[in-house]
């Protein structure tokens, strides 16, 4: 069992009923392949940088889960067939310390074993709809755009 992040962009056409259904479906795929979801990071509707399937926006959500070695391949097969999934990505990734502190993950230490266990059960309570996390890291804040003209 390795830790993965399953990132998904769902279609913006899903309404209030079918959106939770879709999420449940994906969670069902994860659990049916022997996986276990640790943390949910829901970013919500967001404008995409380019059009996908002629859609301008997408519903961003990602799950941190531990999957068996065959899990990613099975998930990929399922996701490819679903039209409501505009784009997905399954990457090896450790669970972040806390979703709210994502912006400070820049200086995150890698020993995240303890906080995971405590936050593992709260899947619904992570409603971070601020897509661009704004926390100033002082020394990183100096803009380099000026030089690159």
């Amino acid at each position, binding site marked *: 069992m390795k830790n993965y992040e399953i990132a998904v962009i769902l279609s913006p056409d899903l309404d209030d009923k079918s959106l939770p259904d879709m999420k449940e479906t994906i969670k069902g795929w994860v659990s049916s392949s022997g996986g276990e979801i640790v943390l949910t*990071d829901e970013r919500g509707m967001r404008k995409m940088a380019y059009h996908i399937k002629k859609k301008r926006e997408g519903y961003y959500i990602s799950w941190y889960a531990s999957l068996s070695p065959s899990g990613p391949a099975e998930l990929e097969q399922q996701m490819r067939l679903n039209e409501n999934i505009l784009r997905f990505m399954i990457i090896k990734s450790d669970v972040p310390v806390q979703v709210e502190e994502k912006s400070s993950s820049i200086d*995150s230490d890698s020993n995240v074993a303890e906080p995971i266990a405590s936050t593992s059960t709260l899947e619904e309570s992570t409603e971070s709809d601020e897509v661009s*996390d704004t*926390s100033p890291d002082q*020394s990183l804040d100096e803009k380099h755009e000026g*030089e*690159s*003209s």
Partner: protein
Amino acid sequence: MAFYRGSSRSYNKRPSVCQFCAEKVTQLDYKNLDILVRQIDPEGKIRPRRRTGTCARHQRMVAVAVKRARHMALLAFDRGSWI
């Protein structure tokens, strides 16, 4: 082009210390757009080490993170409407 070497061609001095080493960064998330936006130029290309001063290890992390962000349509592949 060797023709220009030593002439009035301007250049920006490379920062002496890697900005990520200064922050002791161990992992870089592709969703962290605040940082990634600073690592690409107006064309949407990844900015080279010689301009940003990033060390080799962190430049690899930047490259992976930017490519993942492009795949998830968080950044554009070209001179697009990124942010």
